[in-house]
């Protein structure tokens, strides 16, 4: 659906007498700074807006059109920090519509959905909005079946298909032409849109109270199977040349968490403390290899990896139930072990060990209501990474980075 048609649908839906309209609006505005390896980015702002309307036509049918957009002038600690580009501005816009069909006599809801997203990225001084090398667009359709067997506890099955396209990224090799002697510069079978991908994802997830009749804990489990087809990226063989077959990845991930809501007393008043412990596993199997032309090294199975992560989180909320003050903290460790990618020493020499990276992320936040629906927020994130990959000429693997953001959030 085109944006104008989407907006018109939103407006018209709001005026239809038979439709019960429930708008939801979330917004945030914050300013902050980013530090990486002792350098600091300039102070800049972040903003985010999410607007949606739940259009309830009758007891069975509802529709959720939604817009979400964000501007990020200060890098997050996980935004490609290894590349070390301190100058980064990011903007994205996303439109989606989700149909919600309740099946009479059951706890099932069926939810077909479609979305379109465009993300813009400026990483260097000569990039302008819309001309960023890593700008991308994503078109997605999906279908979800959800069973609220004991609201809010549910189990869900979903299938999503989406295409990610980088409109400004084409391989240089595909447009390299011939050298001054008239010989081709590119390899045979060199392809063009090497980053574009089709994704097909099946996922299943659920939550359950423990014990079932007297909930003290909340258990959540999710599994996803993602098949990624690189439309135009051919496999690299041991001679550094292309094969006719294309790259395919299968990413499976399993995540779980146990939550424990507690009532505590804070500053002489009742408060709610939510504790949780999460664990996640991921396994990516790729058929792609790499050939390092500089070191004349063929690295088979370079993109397959196993990742494990775990960590606790806590959120303390006190004051009014609708708009409480809150204090949050979380710590997360993750390790990524590549199956075929070899670690290099400081000068680039390949060793026998496979590449691995450990990441530790500490996130702290505080929110305090300052007006109806308006909360003052303070957030800081610290990430430190460690790896046996010591060759860091093009990408950092061992570093510390921190950012902070001060701002307000609005929720209607």
């Amino acid at each position, binding site marked *: 659906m085109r944006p104008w048609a989407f907006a018109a649908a939103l407006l018209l839906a709001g005026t239809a007498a038979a439709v*019960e309209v*429930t708008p939801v609006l979330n917004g945030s505005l914050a300013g902050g700074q980013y530090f990486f390896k002792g350098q600091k980015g300039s102070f800049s702002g972040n903003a985010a807006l999410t607007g*949606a309307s*739940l259009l309830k036509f009758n*007891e069975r049918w*509802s529709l*959720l059109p939604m817009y979400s957009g964000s501007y990020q002038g200060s890098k997050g600690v996980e935004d*490609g920090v290894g*590349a070390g*580009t*301190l100058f980064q501005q990011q903007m994205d816009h*996303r439109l989606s519509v989700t149909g919600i069909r309740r099946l*009479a*006599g*059951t*706890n099932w809801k069926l939810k077909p*959905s479609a*979305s379109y997203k465009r*993300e813009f990225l400026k990483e*260097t*001084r*000569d990039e302008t909005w819309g001309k960023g*090398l890593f700008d991308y667009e*994503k078109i997605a359709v999906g279908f979800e079946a959800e069973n609220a067997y*004991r*609201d*809010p506890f549910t189990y869900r099955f979903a299938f*999503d298909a*989406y295409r*990610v396209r*980088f409109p400004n990224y084409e391989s*240089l*090799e595909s447009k*390299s032409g011939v*050298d*001054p*002697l008239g*010989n081709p*510069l*590119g390899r045979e079978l060199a392809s063009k849109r090497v*980053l574009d991908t089709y994704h097909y*994802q099946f996922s299943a997830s659920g939550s359950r*109270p423990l014990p079932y009749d007297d*909930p003290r804990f909340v258990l959540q489990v999710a599994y996803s199977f*993602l098949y990624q087809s690189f439309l135009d990226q051919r496999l690299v063989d*041991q*001679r*550094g*040349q292309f094969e006719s077959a294309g790259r395919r990845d299968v990413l499976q991930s399993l995540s779980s968490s146990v939550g424990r*809501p507690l*009532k505590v007393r804070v500053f002489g008043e009742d408060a709610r403390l939510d504790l949780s412990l999460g664990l996640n596993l991921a396994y990516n199997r790729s058929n792609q290899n*790499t050939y390092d*032309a*500089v*070191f004349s*090294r063929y690295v088979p199975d370079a993109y397959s990896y196993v990742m494990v992560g775990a960590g606790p989180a806590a959120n303390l909320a006190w004051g009014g139930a609708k708009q409480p003050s809150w204090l949050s903290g979380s710590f997360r460790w993750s390790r990524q072990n590549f199956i075929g990618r070899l670690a290099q020493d400081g*000068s*680039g020499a390949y060793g026998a060990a496979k590449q691995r990276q450990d990441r530790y992320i500490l996130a702290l936040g505080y929110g305090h209501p300052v007006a109806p629906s308006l909360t003052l927020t303070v957030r800081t994130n610290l990430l430190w990474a460690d790896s046996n990959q010591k060759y860091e*000429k*093009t990408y950092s693997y061992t570093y510390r980075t921190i950012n902070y953001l001060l701002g307000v959030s609005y929720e209607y």
Partner: protein
Amino acid sequence: MRAESLCAERRSPRHARPAFFGALLAGLLFPRFCDASAITHTEGKVLFLKFGSYTWGQVVRGQVVGPGDRIKTAASARATVTFDDDSRVELSPSTSFTMREASERATETRLDLGSLRAWIAKRRSRSFQVRTPTAVAAVRGTEFSVDVSAQGETRVQMFGGLLAVSDNRGNEVLIKDNQRVEVTAEGIGRVTEAPQGADQRGSRSARETARREVGLEMTKEEVQAAAALEQKNAVYQEGKALIDVNGKRVRVEEYIVRPAADQFKLVVLNERSDRFDYFFYHGTFNRALPDDMSTALRQVSGCIGAACDYFLLSYDTGRSNTIDKVVEAASGGHQVDVNHNGVAGDAVTAAFDPATDRWVSLTADQPFYQTLFNDYSIKFNDVTHQSWTASGLAPGGDIQNTTTHVTYTDVTTVQYEPSCAPPNCTYTEEGVLHQVVYAENAGGTIWEKYDNYIISDEGKIAKLSDFAGITSGAAYKTTLLNWNYQQIVTASEFGGRKIDLVVEPKIFIKSGLIP
């Protein structure tokens, strides 16, 4: 469904689903004081027992509910009872509900098992009560839910308004927004704040539903966006996106083409928003290359101790901005121990050791075999600036060690101070690794200039302190590998244009462009 139609249904049971005009007429004839309630929505198996009857029957929508009538919902079934003032009660699955009284003054209901959620209109002039085996919830104008377990324990939760809850012993408490209380056979419990969504058995409010759906959508988006981020990071990890000394994005691709069994061609492509530059290094070896070319390519810069198994017979390199070009060509390649050829000037003191994949220092008497070429030329847009040609040299002869068999043509010569001054001179910028090499002919009509920078991925020029005083030898070359090399070439033939290349230093070291 509007209240008017409820009244019409009660007065005219044979027309349970009146048409629009019927509903309008009924609304005009029978105002709100008709005290009607009816089942306006059902899902799944919902049973109805009329007061005085002994037989449960499947309910039909529009069924009027009067005093003493009972409703049961099966597992996964739901029902909504709507009153004439738009108040409504939603019954959850596995619920047993009784309408005890429905008069002008009061509505009294009973919940024996299961849960309900009630929205009571504020204009309601009569009281509304929900009785359970252990509690009574009495209210005017509010939204609340009531759960009753199999043991009769009751949990009442408020969503908006004020609600009086009493137990069977006559104790009573008032609960307000987002509070809840539990009542058991032992009496009424303490009023507490209701957890956000953790244990509500009633149906959600529309706003909660909307927020939840928005949250689910945003979570899905995060997962999908991660795929795009991973693509981008892979490009960075492979060194394909850098920033040059002028703060501009440089895309870099480096790969090897294999034009023939004994040939390779290393290609480096650079693209910026407004230009495309490339470098290539095409070599022909003394024998066919193995699939794993690293064995051969590691020997290109020379071999320690013995002659190389693989060496170049000829090569050509090119640098171009797609308009201008610098082409070097060499042929007649053969192996010479340059540390024992009687020429001190070509001795090698630091070399790449293929055995350890590292740069090592050589002692003065350690043999080092390099490929020397009998013929060489470098041309800028087809104009020769330097060349040499060997003639009459014995097979395997050393051009370094003869003056009679080699003809040198040096159109341009490197300019050093004091005969020249920057910028048209050869010099190193103070404190940073920026070197200028300038060469020209006698009249200055033919010239070439190389601006060489050692830069980081972020385009910052390396300081001398980054190399900690190391300016040559194995340590220098090892450290150099951690930086990028940017070379800007200008020449008298380029018409003011330039060739601007960012490459891995190792590529230039291998090809002999960095000695």
